[in-house]
Every structure is written in structure tokens, then in C-alpha cells.
């Protein structure tokens, strides 16, 4: 049994933690609507025009376009590849699986830093640096392992009797995938898409290295450039930061469970 005193302590403690986590975020939100360019908080004179001003000064339209192209394409391709490779490993079996599966797992464990420098020079020699194709390819390639692993686990939970019944019906592997495995595994696919979206949208390191042309850079780099400018207006910088966070945080509001569960089990993408 839990006493009232324990309960009060419990709430007080959790509230304290939550406040500690939220304070920096709330502070930035406050600065984002304050009129002072030095970044002092002034909620008495909220200035909502900071957001449009920041959007224009940081040139976010172009960065947003790039972010949308890069993230949209990379997530779509990654999801398709994850489904195909997960189906291969989890349901069909693969020739040479004993070698190929550990080889794929290696991609989850190796940190990006270990491959990114040679990757840059490879991409450069193929004319892929400073292009959408290049950064998309890099995102897809570095995410393939996790995708295969994730969807394999999801497909393996489908009872084999269901898969067999499809075989008896004479359904080919392709139609079994579409008619049986995909519908059943929809929750896992949704989680995968959300995580993948977040990782790609939030990426800074990979884009920093592979894309130096501002016309093809995503919003995270746009923010970096904006904050690195001499004599930056701090309130506008905060406003730009808020704007860039909106898509992922917005999704997080509605899909908290998928994000948390997915990240607790899959946060090792490197």
C-alpha cells in the first residue's frame, strides 16, 4: 500500500525532474517570442513576427525544401528495403544466411565515424557530394542494417501457420508478402517509418560532411549556419530552432508510444 506521503513525494520528485528537463526548452521558446535581439526574456511584449523574420533571414524555405526531399525519399526507400530484406531473412530464408546475416548486423554496430571519411572520398569521385542523390544514398545505406533487423523481427512474429496457409492457396512469395505479412506487421512498419523519419530529419553529421552546397543542405545545417553568423539575433535564432523542431516534436506528440518503444529497442543506429 502506498501512503499519501509517498504519493506526494512521488509527484514532487517527478515534477522536479520534468521541470529540469523542460526548463531549457521552455526558455528557448520564451526567447523565440521575445523582442530583445540580445536574447533576454521579455514575455510582456511577445513578438510573434520573430518566426517569419527568422524564416526569411535564415533562408529556411530552401533548407526546408531540401529537408523534405532528402527525408521523404530516404525514408521511402529505406522502408521498402527494410521490408524486402526483413522478409528475406525472417520468412523466406536466404542462401548464405550464416554469412550474410552477421555481415548485415555489422552495419548496426559500426559507428558512422568509422566509414564517413572514405565514404566522402568515394562519393566525391562519383560526383555524389553536394547532391540530393548522394546524401539520400548515404542515409539509406547506413540505415539498411537496422531496417533488415527490425523487419525480420517483426515478420518472425507472424505465426508460421498463417504463412503456410498462403502457400497452400498457391500464393507466390510476393503476394504473400502483400496480402499477409504487410498488413499484420503494420504497427512495426509505422514505428520504423517514424524512427527513420526522425533520424534522417535530425541528422547533422552526415549532411555536414557530404553536403557543403547550401542549396542542397537540410534544415539542421541551415540552423548551424544561421547560429554561426557574426552578430546573430539571439531571439531569431531561437525562433528558427523552434521552427526546425516542429515536425519531429509534432509527431512525438501524437505517437509518443511508438517513439519511446521504438527508441528503447532500436536506439543503436549509428
Amino acid at each position, binding site marked *: 500500500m*502506498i501512503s499519501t506521503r*509517498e504519493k506526494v513525494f*512521488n509527484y514532487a*520528485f*517527478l515534477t522536479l*525532474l520534468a521541470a529540469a528537463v523542460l526548463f*531549457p526548452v521552455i*526558455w*528557448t521558446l520564451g526567447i523565440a517570442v521575445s523582442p530583445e535581439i*540580445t536574447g533576454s*526574456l521579455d514575455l510582456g511584449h511577445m513578438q510573434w513576427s520573430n518566426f517569419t523574420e527568422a524564416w526569411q533571414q535564415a533562408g529556411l524555405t530552401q533548407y526546408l525544401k531540401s529537408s523534405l526531399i532528402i527525408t521523404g525519399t530516404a525514408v521511402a526507400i529505406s522502408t521498402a*528495403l527494410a521490408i*524486402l*530484406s526483413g522478409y*528475406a*531473412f525472417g520468412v*523466406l*530464408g*536466404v542462401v548464405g544466411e550464416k554469412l*550474410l*546475416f552477421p555481415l548485415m*548486423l*555489422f*552495419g548496426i*554496430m559500426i*559507428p558512422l*565515424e*568509422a*566509414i*564517413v*571519411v*572514405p*565514404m566522402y572520398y568515394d562519393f566525391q569521385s562519383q560526383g555524389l557530394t553536394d547532391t540530393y542523390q548522394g546524401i539520400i*544514398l548515404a542515409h*539509406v*545505406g547506413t540505415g*539498411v542494417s537496422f531496417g*533488415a533487423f527490425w523487419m525480420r*523481427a517483426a515478420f*518472425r*512474429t507472424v505465426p*508460421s501457420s498463417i504463412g503456410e496457409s498462403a502457400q497452400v492457396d498457391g500464393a507466390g*512469395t510476393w503476394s504473400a508478402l502483400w496480402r499477409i505479412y504487410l498488413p499484420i506487421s503494420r*504497427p512495426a512498419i509505422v*514505428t520504423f517509418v517514424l524512427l527513420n523519419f*526522425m533520424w534522417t530529419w*535530425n541528422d*547533422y*553529421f552526415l549532411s555536414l560532411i557530404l553536403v557543403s552546397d547550401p542549396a542542397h543542405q537540410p534544415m539542421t*545545417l541551415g*540552423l548551424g549556419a544561421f547560429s554561426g553568423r557574426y552578430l546573430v539575433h539571439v531571439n531569431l535564432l531561437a525562433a528558427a*530552432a523552434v521552427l526546425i*523542431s516542429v515536425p*519531429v516534436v509534432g509527431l512525438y506528440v501524437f505517437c509518443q508510444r511508438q*517513439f*519511446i518503444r*521504438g527508441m528503447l529497442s532500436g*536506439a*543503436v543506429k*549509428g
Partner: protein
Amino acid sequence: MATLNESRASEAATVAAPATATAGGESVHPPRRANHPRRSSRRRRRWLGLAYLAPALLIYACVVLLPAGQGVNLSFYHWDGITAATWAGVENYTDFFTDPTLRQAVGHTLFFIVFFSFLPVVLGMTSAALTARKDTRGAGVYRWIIFLPQVLTPAVVAVVWKQIYAPDGPLNSVLTAFGLGGLTRGWLGDFTWALPALGLAGTWGAFGLCMVLFAAGAQNIPNELYDAARMDGAGPLREFFTVTLPGLRGQLAVALTLTLLGAIRVFDIVWLTTKGGPGTSTITPTVVLYKRAFSNPDVGAACAIGVVLAVVALIVSLAVVKLSESDD
């Protein structure tokens, strides 16, 4: 991979993957195969499987495997990225002992391990133990808030902390308000304080993941164990060490792996706030790697750092997993 395995067992709901599904390369085949007499059709399926896998495998080979191999190879050369490379032997690796900047960076990593890994794990474990077993109304809201830093864009997190630590930022205002005006400074521009300041930002970033992970694990510890401990007259402290901690071993392994890997790979927040400065007082191996690779390139040296990071990352993950499974 065991990392994924462990936590998935604890968070059963999303895909309800069987824990065995990921136990190493040699997969436990479902009985369906054994009951299936037609060998040739099974073989055909496996070739078909390879066809399904082929596109992913091809991209993976080009983007990950090939550069990984090249990285190891390049790490034995001196190369400026343009002119012909010259053989370097293990020189790029001995840099870890002889190069003052790199040595300093490694030292900072050890420092960051405290802030990015140990503190979040300890704080997360304590908070989870204190709160998780009580039926808290509104627990979802708290969890949402405490987990929030995990989904924030690192570039945004950097902006946030830059403002907190600014010379006229809130941290200094608080200090002044408490009559400690003498302590105020531009925290990220201070040779002594920039590093712990970034460390605290790291603690802030990693704490929520640990706490939510442990809280989820604590839900799965059977109530009977606690009842039994109470019957034995165990106080809260003994209860923690005899019931909660052993029950959370899997989660502890996951939390340690994730946060340790985070600590040795710190880049975004450092690069976006201090660029390793002032001087080299907040430099990390990944920042050195980036600088060696792209400004005044010494590509081989950068690759050597990458290889060492990869090896350390592999050792850390394997060691933590082994430790967590050792006395099962």
C-alpha cells in the same frame, strides 16, 4: 544486436519479437521448415530470399562495407586527399599516444563518459526506483516530458544550451540572484568550465532515455518479489539491491551500451557550440577526426581515429552484453 534483443524483450508490445529471434547469427528455424518435405522448393525459396535481399545488400556493400574496408586500408597511409598517398605504417595509430591534441581528446572522452553515461544511468536508475512501482496518475505526461530530449534535433539542442550558458543567459542570472555574481561567466567560452558545461548538457540529454528504460523494466518485476522482500524486513535500500537492481540487469546493459557509445562519439553539440574550443579545451576524438579529414586534410590520420572508435565501440557493446549475461 543483443542490445536490441534485450530491450525488445522488455518492451514486448510493439512487435512482440520473440527473444530468441535475435540470438546470434544461427537462427532458430521455425518448425515449419522441418515439417516440409520438399527440399527443392525450400532451396528455391532461399534463392528467392537472396533476390529479395539483393537491393539492400548492394547498397549496404557500397555505402558501408566498401568504405569500412577502405578506412582500415587508408589508416596506414598519409594522404592529403589530392596527391599520392604515402605509406605510414602504424604512425597514425601511435598518434593516440604522441599527438597532444588527440591525447587530450581521449582524456575528454573519459571525462564525458562520466557525464554522458554514468550520471544519466545512476540518476535514471534512482529516479526509476523511486517512482516506477507506484501507480502514478499522469505517468504518461511525465514520461513524455522526460523523454523529450531524445527526439529533439541535436542542432536545436546545441542552440538551446548555447543560450543557457550565454554570458547574459539564465544560468548567470540565477547565480546573480543568489548573490553569486562573482561566479558568472560565459560558460562555453571558459577554458575550465566549457567541458563540464557541455557534459551537463549531455547528462540532460541522456538521462530521460535511461529513466524511461529502467521504469519500463521495473514494471516487469513481479510484485511478489517486493512483497517477499518486505516480509523479510528489507528496507528500501536492501529492496533496491536485492530486487530492483537484479531485475533491471538487461535494461542496465542497454542503457550502458547506448550512453557509452554516445559518450565516445560526441560531435554535434560540441561542434555547434564550441567547435572544440576555446583552444582545444572541449575537443573530442570525433572533432579531431572531422578536422583531420576536411580542414588541412590528413585523411589517413582521420581514418585511424575512425577505426579506433569502431573497435572501441565493438568492445564496449560486447563487454557490456557479456557482463550482463555472465551469471545467468
